[in-house]
C-alpha cells in the first residue's frame, strides 16, 4: 500500500442529530439470573442501544482494529455533527488512540432528542470532513520537506466514512453533491496555502443505519464515480449486529486486511481446571500474510472457509505443539501485526495473554495429504503480537558449501572466544532521541561504528599471531586503551599493567608465545619479551592519536620496556628481506600510526605464506618483528642473558654461551636447565602453578 493512499486519512462523520437517539430496538438482556437466586426476583428489563450508541461502538471497533494493525501512518479524524460540527481529535499521531476518542465522545454524550431537528444535519460534519482532509498531516509534511523539489509526489487522498440515518435516496444524492462541491471549493483555497493540500482523490462511504424491524428507505449502491475527485458508495444496514459486521468488513477492505482463524488451541476449562478443550480464535492482519497461499493457489486447501453471512473468508491454521523457543532464528519472510476480531472473548484473551507473556507458537497449514507444513508463527515483541510468515518453499540456499571449505577455512586457531567477548562489548542498545541533539554530535549508529573502528585498530585474528592477547596480565590495559578518552585512573591502571609486565620480565616469567608451526621450544625468554613489548607498543600506538593520556601510556611503555638496540641488531643480521621490512616499518612509523597495523597485517600474510615453504623453520613468524630462524643463524645476541642489561658481557659469558648454543643443537636441553636462573632450577614448580600463582603457558588463564 502506498503511504499516501486514500487510507492515509480517514474522516469519520457520525450523525448526532435527535433522530439518532432513537432506539435500535435490539435488546440486550444484561440481568442473567442464576438458578439459586432466581426465585422471587423480578429481572431487570432488557436495555437497548440507541442508533447513536450502535454507530459509536462500531466506529470505535473499526478504529481499534485499525490502530492495532497500523499504530502509525494511518490516521483518523473523528467528527460529530448536529446543529454544528464537533471535531474530536486532529490528524496528529498522539491524538490517534481509542482512549482519546472515547474520552471526547463521553464529553459529547448521546444526541439530545429535544434539539430542533431543523437546525441539525450531518452536512455540517461532511463539510468539516472535507476541510479536514485538506489539512496536511505530519507525515505529508515530513515527506514534502524531505523530497524538496519533487514534493509534488506527495499525494493528498482520503476517505470519509459517514454514519447517518438518511431520509431517502434523494437525500443521499444531496449529501454526495454537497461533498463534491465542498471539495472543489476547498481545493481552490488549499492551492494557495502552505498548510493545506488540495484533495486529489476522495472516497465517500455512506452508511445508512436504521432500527431493527423497520424497512430501509435507502438502497445499497456499490462504488461509483461522482467525479474524477470523488467516488461514493452507499451501505444500508440495520443497527446492531449487522452494522458491526458491516464495519468489520469495511475495515478489512479499506486497509487490505485478511482473517486467519487459529484452531485447536488447547485451553483449560474455567470450571474444571483439569480438563482441556480446544478453541478457535479469529485474528485480523495485513493480507500479505496469506501471500504464499494466493501465489500457490493453495487458499482453499489451506482451510479457507466462509463464515457467518458468507461475506467474509478466513484461513484456518492449526495450533502446533511443541512450541518454539526464542533463541531459534526462523527464516521469516514477513511479520504482520494482528488484532483479534473478538478481543474480549475468553479464547481470544487466553491466546493473547499467552503470547504477551513472551511465548511463541508455530502454526500449521492443514493439508489434505496429511503432510505437516509449518507456515506461520505467532509471537509478541514488546507488547505487540505479530503473525510471522515462515518460509515453507525450498530455496536455492539449501545445500551451501561449508565455511570451512572456503577462504580461511583451514585455519584452526581463530580467536573465537575473544571475538565473542568483543561482540558482547559491541552489542547495541537503543539510545533515546534527544530533542536538543547537538548537530555536531554523531548519531548513535555512527558512534557504534566508530567504537568498532577503535576496538579493531589492532586485532590479530588467530592465537598464534599474538602474544599480548593471550596474557591475562595485559587485559586491563587492552580493555582501557580502546576507549575514546581515558580518565586519570585509567592511565594509572595502564601504567600499573606495564609495571606488572616489567616485573614479570624481571622475574623471567614465561610468556604464552605460540609454538604453532614451530618445532622445539621456540624463541628464548628475552626474545619473547621483545616480541611482547613490540606488540604492546603496536597496540598502544594505534590509539595515540586519541588523546594525551593515550600518549602517556605509550610513553610509559617506551620508558619501561627493556631496550635492546633494535636497529643495531638488525644491521648485524644484515639480511635483505629484513632491511626491506625495516624500511616499510620506518615508513609506517613516520606515516599515520593507524596504518601500521594494516601494514603489519599485510606483512604477516606474506610471512605466513613463507612459513609454508619453510616447514623446517624452528620459529614462529607471527609478526614482522619475529626473530630469524635459529637454525639458520644462531647469533649470540639472540640469547642474551638477563645480566646483559646490567653491563658489558664478559668473554667467559660469550664463550659459555657459544658452547651452549653449539651443544644445544646436538641434544635436547633439560627442561629444568632451560628455565633455570643462574644455573639453579627451582624444583616442584608445578605446585606453585597449581596454587594459581602463575600463568598458563598456552593461552590465557581462565577469566
Amino acid at each position, binding site marked *: 500500500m502506498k503511504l499516501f493512499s486514500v487510507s492515509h486519512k480517514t474522516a469519520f462523520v457520525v450523525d448526532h442529530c435527535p433522530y439518532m437517539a432513537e432506539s435500535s430496538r435490539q435488546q440486550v438482556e444484561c440481568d442473567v439470573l442464576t438458578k439459586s437466586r432466581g426465585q422471587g426476583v423480578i429481572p431487570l428489563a432488557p436495555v437497548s442501544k440507541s442508533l447513536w450508541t450502535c454507530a459509536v461502538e462500531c466506529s470505535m471497533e473499526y478504529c481499534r482494529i485499525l490502530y492495532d494493525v497500523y499504530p502509525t501512518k494511518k490516521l483518523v479524524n473523528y467528527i460529530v455533527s448536529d446543529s454544528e460540527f464537533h471535531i474530536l481529535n486532529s490528524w496528529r499521531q498522539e491524538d490517534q488512540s481509542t482512549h482519546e476518542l472515547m474520552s471526547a465522545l463521553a464529553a459529547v454524550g448521546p444526541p439530545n432528542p429535544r434539539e430542533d431537528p431543523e437546525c441539525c444535519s450531518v452536512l455540517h460534519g461532511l463539510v468539516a470532513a472535507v476541510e479536514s482532509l485538506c489539512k496536511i498531516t505530519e507525515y505529508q509534511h515530513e515527506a514534502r520537506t524531505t523530497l524538496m523539489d519533487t514534493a509534488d509526489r506527495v499525494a493528498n487522498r482520503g476517505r470519509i466514512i459517514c454514519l447517518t440515518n438518511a431520509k431517502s435516496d434523494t437525500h443521499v444524492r444531496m449529501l454526495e453533491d454537497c461533498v463534491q462541491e465542498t471539495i472543489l471549493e476547498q481545493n481552490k483555497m488549499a492551492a494557495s496555502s502552505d498548510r493545506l493540500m488540495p484533495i486529489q482523490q476522495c472516497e465517500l462511504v455512506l452508511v445508512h443505519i436504521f432500527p431493527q424491524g423497520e424497512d430501509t428507505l435507502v438502497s445499497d449502491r456499490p462504488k461509483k464515480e461522482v467525479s474524477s475527485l470523488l467516488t461514493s458508495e452507499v451501505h444500508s444496514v440495520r443497527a446492531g449486529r449487522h452494522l458491526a459486521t458491516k464495519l468489520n468488513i469495511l475495515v478489512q477492505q479499506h486497509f487490505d486486511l485478511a482473517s486467519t482463524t487459529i484452531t485447536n488451541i488447547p485451553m483449560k476449562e474455567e470450571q474444571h481446571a483439569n480438563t482441556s478443550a480446544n478453541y478457535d480464535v479469529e485474528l485480523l492482519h495485513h493480507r500479505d500474510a496469506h501471500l504464499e497461499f494466493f501465489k500457490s493457489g493453495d487458499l482453499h486447501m489451506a482451510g479457507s472457509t466462509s463464515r457467518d453471512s458468507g461475506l467474509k473468508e478466513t484461513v484456518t491454521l492449526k495450533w502446533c505443539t511443541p512450541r518454539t523457543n526464542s533463541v531459534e532464528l526462523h527464516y521469516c519472510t514477513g511479520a504482520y501485526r494482528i488484532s483479534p476480531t*473478538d478481543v474480549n472473548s475468553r479464547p481470544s484473551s487466553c491466546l493473547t495473554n499467552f503470547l504477551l507473556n513472551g511465548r511463541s507458537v508455530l502454526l500449521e497449514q492443514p493439508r489434505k495429504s496429511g503432510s505437516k507444513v509449518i507456515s506461520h508463527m505467532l509471537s509478541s515483541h514488546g507488547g505487540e503480537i505479530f503473525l510471522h510468515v515462515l518460509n515453507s518453499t525450498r530455496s536455492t540456499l539449501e545445500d551451501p558449501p561449508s565455511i570451512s571449505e572456503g577462504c580461511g577455512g583451514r585455519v584452526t586457531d581463530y580467536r573465537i572466544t575473544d571475538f565473542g567477548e568483543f561482540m558482547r562489548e559491541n552489542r547495541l542498545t537503543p539510545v533515546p532521541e534527544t530533542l536538543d541533539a547537538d548537530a555536531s554530535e554523531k548519531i548513535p549508529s555512527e558512534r557504534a561504528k566508530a567504537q568498532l573502528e577503535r576496538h579493531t585498530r589492532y586485532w590479530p585474528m588467530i592465537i598464534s599471531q599474538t602474544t599480548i592477547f593471550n596474557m591475562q596480565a595485559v587485559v586491563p590495559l587492552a580493555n582501557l586503551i580502546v576507549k575514546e578518552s581515558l580518565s586519570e585512573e585509567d592511565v594509572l591502571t595502564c601504567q600499573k599493567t606495564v609495571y606488572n609486565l616489567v616485573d614479570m620480565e624481571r622475574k623471567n616469567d614465561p610468556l604464552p608465545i605460540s609454538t604453532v608451526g614451530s618445532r622445539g621450544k621456540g624463541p628464548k625468554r628475552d626474545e619473547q619479551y621483545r616480541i611482547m613489548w613490540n606488540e604492546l607498543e603496536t597496540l598502544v600506538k594505534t590509539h595515540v592519536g586519541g588523546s594525551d593520556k593515550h600518549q602517556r601510556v605509550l610513553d610509559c611503555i617506551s620508558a619501561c620496556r627493556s631496550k635492546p638496540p633494535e636497529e643495531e641488531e638488525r644491521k648485524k643480521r644484515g639480511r635483505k628481506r629484513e632491511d626491506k621490512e625495516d624500511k616499510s616499518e620506518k615508513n609506517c612509523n613516520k606515516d599515520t600510526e593507524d596504518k601500521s597495523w594494516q601494514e603489519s597485517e599485510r606483512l604477516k600474510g606474506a610471512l605466513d605464506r613463507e612459513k609454508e615453504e619453510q616447514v623446517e623453520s624452528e620459529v614462529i613468524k607471527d609478526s614482522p618483528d619475529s626473530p630469524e630462524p635459529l637454525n639458520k643463524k644462531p647469533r649470540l645476541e639472540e640469547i642474551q642473558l638477563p645480566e646483559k642489561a646490567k653491563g658489558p658481557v664478559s668473554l667467559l659469558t660469550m664463550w659459555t654461551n657459544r658452547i651452549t648454543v653449539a651443544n644445544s643443537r646436538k641434544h635436547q636441553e633439560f627442561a629444568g636447565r632451560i628455565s633455570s636462573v643462574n644455573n639453579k632450577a627451582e624444583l616442584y614448580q608445578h605446585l606453585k602453578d597449581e596454587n594459581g600463582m602463575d600463568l598458563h603457558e598456552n593461552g590465557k588463564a581462565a577469566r
Partner: protein
Amino acid sequence: MPTVVLMDASLSMTRPVSLDQGSEELQRKNLAVAGLTMLFEHMASNYRLEFTSLVAFSSLWELLVPFTRDYNTLQVVLVTDGSLGIGKGSLRHSLQTLKQRPEDKKFPLPFPFPAKLFIMCIASAEELQMTDTMDNLEKLLQLNGGDGQIFTMEGQLCLKSVQSMFGRLIDAAYSPFHAVLRCGNLTSDVQVFPRPEPVFLDQEVDPLPKHVLTDLEIVGFIEIGDISSPPVISRHLVLPIAVSKEVDDVGAGAPEELEEETSANQQAGKAPNFCVLLHGSLKVEGMVALVQVGPEWHGMLYSQADSKKKSNLMMSLFEPGPEPLPWLGKMSQLGPISDAAENPYGEDDSRSPFPLQPPVKRSYAQNVTVWIKASGLQTDVQKILRNARKLPEKTQTFYKELNRLRKAALAFGFWELLKGVAELLERECTLLPDTAHPDAAFQLSHAAQQLKLASTGDSQYSLFEHNINPMHTDFSGGGVGV
C-alpha cells in the same frame, strides 16, 4: 535465482548462417550451443551455486536436465531464432487468441511465480523487425509483467557476435556480486550470492530502486533472542573470496583454469579470514551482526547451519527504511552500550534493552471494553454483580469494574445502561442477607447513586476521566474502604 534454459530445437534452427568466407558451415543451432556453452562455463566458474535446467522445445518439448528441487522464483532464458511458425499452436496464434482460451488451458505467461524472462535471439534485430516477430516477443515480455529483456545479435551472425550477445546476458543477470565486509578495521572480500536485486519501495514517493552497496559495514551485534526471527526480504550467502584472485571478465574460467583455481583456493584456505572468525563467534555466542548495506538499509549476518551440520555465513536483508523492526526502534538510534549510563544488559547479562515497548498499548493488552456482542456486555455486568455480593472484601475490584463500565457507557452515550446497572445494584442491596457486613449496603447504594447521577449527563458527574471512589465509612475492619 534458478535458471531454466529453453532451447529452440525446431527445424528453422538448422538454417545455415551465411558467412563471407566459406570457412566452416555453421547453423543457427551451433551458434546457440556456443552461446549457451559460454553461459554455462561462466556459471561454473563465477556463479557456481546457481541451479540450472535445460529444456529443448519445438512443437513438443523435452526436459533434458531437470531441477532437483522446487523454487519460488525463476530466471528463464529462451534461446530461439525467432521463427514463430504458423497456424494453431504457434506463438503468433496463441497471442492472438489469448482471451479466448478456456480456464483450464491458460497461456503459461505470466508465470505463477516471480520470474525474469530473457529471450536470446539467434537473429539480428533487423531480421526480426521485418516480420512481426519482435512485436510478438515484446508482447511475451509484457505478459510476464515486463520483467526481462530481449537480446538480439549485432552485426553478422557468427560465433563472435553470439558470444558478445551472451556476454550482455551474463552482465545483466549473472555477474557475481562482490563486496567488502567491514567491521571497523577488520575486513574481508566477499561474494554475495545470490546477487541482491534492487528493491522498490513506495514508488509514488520514491520511484528509484534501492541497491545494495558494495561496502557492507557492521554496525554492532545483537543477541538472537533480541532480534527474534525478524522478517526479511531476501537471504544471501556471504562467501569470502581470495583478494589476489581477481575474477576475470566474461568468458573466464575455461576448464583448464579450474585446476589452478582450486589450488589457489587451497592456498587461501590457510590464510586467516575475517568471515570465518566472525562466523565462528556468531555461532558460539548465538548472536547476529547488524550490517548496513545502504543508506537507511540494514541486514543481519548470522551463522546458518543445515541438517548436515555444515554451516555458513548468511546475510538476510530487512525491508529498506529507517525502522524495519519495530522492536528494535530506529536503526540510526542504535548506539554502543558504552553510551548508556549503566550497561543495559546488566553486569551479569541478565537483562536486555530489547524489545522496545510501543508508546501506546494495543487493544488486546489493555483490557478494552467492547459490547458489540451481547455476551460482552453481560459478562461485564455479571462481573460487577459477582463482586457486589462479596463486599466489602472485593471493594477494590468492584469499583474497578464499575468504573470500567461507567467509562464505556459514557463514551457510547449508553445512559440507559447506567440506569439499569444502578437498579441492579439497588436490588442487590435489598437482597443482602442479615449476616452481610454493614459496609456492603452503604457501598452498593453509594455506587448506584453515582451511576444514576452520571446517567443524567450532568457534567459534574459524567466526566470521562472521573472515577467513582469507594464511600468512606466508619466501620472498623471495613475492608479497604479508603
